[in-house]
């Protein structure tokens, strides 16, 4: 028996070692690809990659000088690659090149920005560069502060952000793109900070954010509600930085271009491979589960008594699909994505594997709440960079006039749009990759995405409009409106007919006046009662927003307000405790 246990342990260790090797291989593959760019086209990432490999450095140095002498731009997006180059130098650059780097932090004034990812990138870079030049006075820095002052300020900001995030949730939560600009600076601090506390805290935050992703990872695709995604990735779910990290960290999906280049810097900074338990959480979809999260809004400068609002997320995961939502409302500006059904596909490139509806809100109330924009130029200032913001057919963004309730794989979105609102309609996204789409006489629209059946019930009349790039937009110009969606797997219903029959048999009552209201019995036997503006009730009980956990599900556990995350899987428990700054992993009692 003992021998058997030893063999099992050896096999497990060997497997873990192989997985680790895979991670190191993927990491090196990424770095080598970046370093192989031809000399004249090298940019900062390529220069850093060559320094990491200790190959082709003279040409990299020449290119570095060209870039620095040719005019610097990019603010914190210049600071973080420069920080990597400075730390990967390790004696390879010439003294003049090193002096040029140093001088650039005086000659160029990088702006600190206006979002948390900007500030984390900025302060991480300031912390590490001040650490590198500890004796430099204010005359050496663009902001006139000494290295000591800069480092203390950076440390304070980073510590306060960690505390805020681990007690109240991330502000830019679950971002498909911006996840990179959180993992990247944290990997720098974990690798290069000399203070043990900063180093440890950063490595724990990497696990925290990776765990946050892992529980909502559908074969490499970040599912559920997002504080921020973008126009392309909101429909082509694979196309983003989160997929880069799914490939790099867990070996999922396929190697990507990479988007945005953030994963390369994580690799260059020796970003850690996630612990085995996280890989298992990211990949184990053997049983469906509901996962809850509590997050917070971005800073709300105006119109609210509290700086941060609460965000309550629900995500239902299966091996074939996920249904995820927040509670609705304008929780984040411009790039919020509140709910969808996303189905798994073997090769997600080019596939629009999702379905959802939204009210295409555009307005200064949102922009003034979250930004300092002037009222007359704010909308234009946004759409100059986020080009669809003020478009009636957009598929991205939250709305103050949407409310959402979810129970497992059923979701209800209700809309009560005041008269006079810009874009007084709702858009439903029907992908070009849906199959067997049928508008049933019952009012339900039935369809299939991959191995997932989806039933979509619009609550008001609609017409179809084409979408550039494929697919159709369900356009419903009614102010009081709603969508009821039920998903199920092909394992449960072999044919569309059997699914249709089951859904048509489900009791559904709704009314749109005076406020949209739905009562729906789901395929899982739960009854959702939901009136716009009121707390949803499941089987007669109102959703417990007050008791909503920071993380709640089979794999992640955490109470709101407590800086502690517990991960469990396969009889193993791993606990991140930010108060004690400890990581503890143990076999759970009773585990085999």
């Amino acid at each position, binding site marked *: 028996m003992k021998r058997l246990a030893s063999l099992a342990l050896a096999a497990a260790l060997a497997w873990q070692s192989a997985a680790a090797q895979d991670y190191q291989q993927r990491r090196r593959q990424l770095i080598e690809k970046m370093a192989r760019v031809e000399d004249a086209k090298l940019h900062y990432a390529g220069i850093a990659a060559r320094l990491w490999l200790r190959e082709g450095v003279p040409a990299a140095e020449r290119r570095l000088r060209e870039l620095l002498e040719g*005019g*610097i*731009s*990019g603010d914190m997006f210049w600071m973080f690659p420069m920080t990597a180059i400075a730390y990967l130098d390790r004696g390879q650059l010439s003294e003049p090149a090193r002096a040029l780097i140093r001088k650039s932090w005086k000659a*160029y*004034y990088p*702006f*600190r920005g*206006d979002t948390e990812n900007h*500030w984390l990138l900025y*302060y991480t870079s300031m912390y590490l560069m001040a650490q590198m030049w500890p004796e430099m006075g*204010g*005359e050496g820095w*663009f*902001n*006139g*502060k000494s290295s000591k002052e800069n480092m203390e*300020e*950076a440390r*304070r*900001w980073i510590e*306060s952000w960690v505390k805020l995030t681990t007690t109240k949730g991330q502000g830019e939560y679950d971002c498909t793109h911006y996840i990179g600009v959180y993992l990247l600076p944290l990997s720098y601090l974990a690798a290069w900070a000399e203070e043990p506390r900063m180093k440890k805290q950063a490595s724990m935050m990497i696990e925290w954010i990776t765990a946050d992703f892992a529980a909502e990872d559908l074969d490499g695709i970040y599912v559920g509600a997002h504080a921020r995604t973008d126009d392309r990735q909101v429909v082509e779910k694979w196309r983003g930085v989160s997929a880069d990290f799914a490939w790099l960290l867990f070996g999922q999906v396929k190697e990507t271009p990479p988007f945005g280049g953030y994963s390369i810097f994580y690799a260059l900074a020796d970003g850690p491979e996630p612990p085995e338990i996280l890989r298992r959480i990211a990949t184990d979809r053997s049983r469906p589960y509901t996962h809850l999260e509590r997050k917070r809004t971005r*800073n709300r*400068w*105006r*119109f609210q008594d509290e*700086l941060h609002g609460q965000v309550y997320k629900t995500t239902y995961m299966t091996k074939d699909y996920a249904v995820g939502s927040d509670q609705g409302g304008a929780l984040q500006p411009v790039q919020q994505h509140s709910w969808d059904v996303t189905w798994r596909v073997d090769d997600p490139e080019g596939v629009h594997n999702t379905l959802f509806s939204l009210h295409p809100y555009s307005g200064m109330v949102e922009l*003034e709440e979250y930004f*300092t924009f*002037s*009222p*007359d*130029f704010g909308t234009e200032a946004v759409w*100059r*960079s986020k080009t669809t913001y003020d478009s009636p057919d957009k598929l991205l963004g939250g709305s103050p006039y949407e409310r959402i309730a979810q129970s497992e794989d059923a979701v209800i979105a209700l809309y009560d749009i005041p008269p006079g609102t810009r874009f007084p309609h709702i858009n439903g996204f029907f992908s070009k990759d849906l199959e067997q789409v049928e508008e049933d006489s019952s009012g339900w629209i039935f369809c299939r995405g991959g191995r997932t059946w989806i039933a979509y019930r619009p609550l008001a009349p609609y017409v179809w409009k084409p979408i550039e790039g494929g697919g159709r937009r369900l356009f419903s110009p009614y102010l009081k409106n709603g969508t009821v969606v039920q998903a199920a797997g092909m394992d449960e219903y072999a044919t569309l007919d059997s699914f249709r029959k089951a859904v048509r048999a489900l009791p559904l009552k709704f009314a749109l006046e005076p406020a949209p209201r739905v009562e729906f019995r789901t395929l899982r036997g739960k009854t959702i009662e939901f009136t716009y503006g009121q707390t949803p009730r499941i089987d007669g009980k109102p959703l417990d927003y007050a008791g909503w956990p920071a993380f709640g599900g089979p794999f992640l556990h955490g109470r709101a307000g407590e800086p502690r995350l517990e991960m469990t899987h396969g009889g193993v428990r791993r606990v991140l405790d930010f108060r004690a700054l400890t990581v503890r992993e143990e076999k759970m009692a009773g585990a085999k």
Partner: protein
Amino acid sequence: MRVLVWFTVAALCAHAEHRLHALGVTTKGWVVGAALLPSGLFVKRADGAWANEGYRHPLLTAVAWIDGSPETLFLAAGDGVIRIDAQGRWRVLTDETVTELQDISAGAGGVLAFGHTTGFRVSEDRGATWREISAGLPRRYGKAVRLDRLRKGRVVIGTENGFYVSNNLGGTWQLAGAAGFQAMRVEQSPHDASLWLAVTQKGGIFRSTDGGQTFEATPRDAAAGRNLYDIAFDPADARRIAVCGWGPGVLVSEDGGITWQARNQGLPRPDVWSVAFDPDKPGRLYAGVHEEALYVSEDAGKTWRADGLPGSIILKMAFVPAGGAR
């Protein structure tokens, strides 16, 4: 020799006792991600050309200096208070706890105050240390702030819910006017310390004749429902005031802010961010027109011509006494 020196100094002083400073960003033609176009602090040189002084900066919103020390400027910036000294050296005076400053003011006794996204702060040691003065305010978005230039301790602030006044440097606050309206700017007359003017988002122009204790709405016809951004008192004429905004363009009052006339003839569009009267040239008025240019009028806004800074958004202008070495 002594006579020659005297004449030289006198000639210089006669030429310009103040230098026009403009804070802004060139946005026309700029593409997100590209290097900043000329932006930050612009200073009009003696030859009339503009110089983008110091670093390029994307968000400078206001400038102040302590009376008698114009060689040192204090800028409200997106990343804190920036001090520029006589040698042109920049130094950020604040820390990680403030962001996106909206306004800054210097008042009696050398006190400084600024408004930021979550409140207002003051400094009584020339910016070395700051303390928050927002306690007691129902909402704290710090859009506008002016310290009384004569009476130490009096400060008028603009929030998302109108204007508040404190006579003990933020110890206590009372609502002064424009309740329910987002404040945009407040200014004190250089002629009459009891006359203050305030402008709002969609609420029009408000006027105080009791030292900022109470503000009353003025006839709003010219600016009804529009957003007003800036106020300028004419240093040469106690009764002339200009305000500007998006839609109304430039509005000028010749009766101390009681009635207003639009003065946009010759402006390319009536969307104006900032106005300033030249204290050395009576009747000369500048206007920052959205993404067009800075415009200048020699007749208090009756006619206009472009005067540089093409494609810019100029958020604030100030004539700084030309006594500093900078």
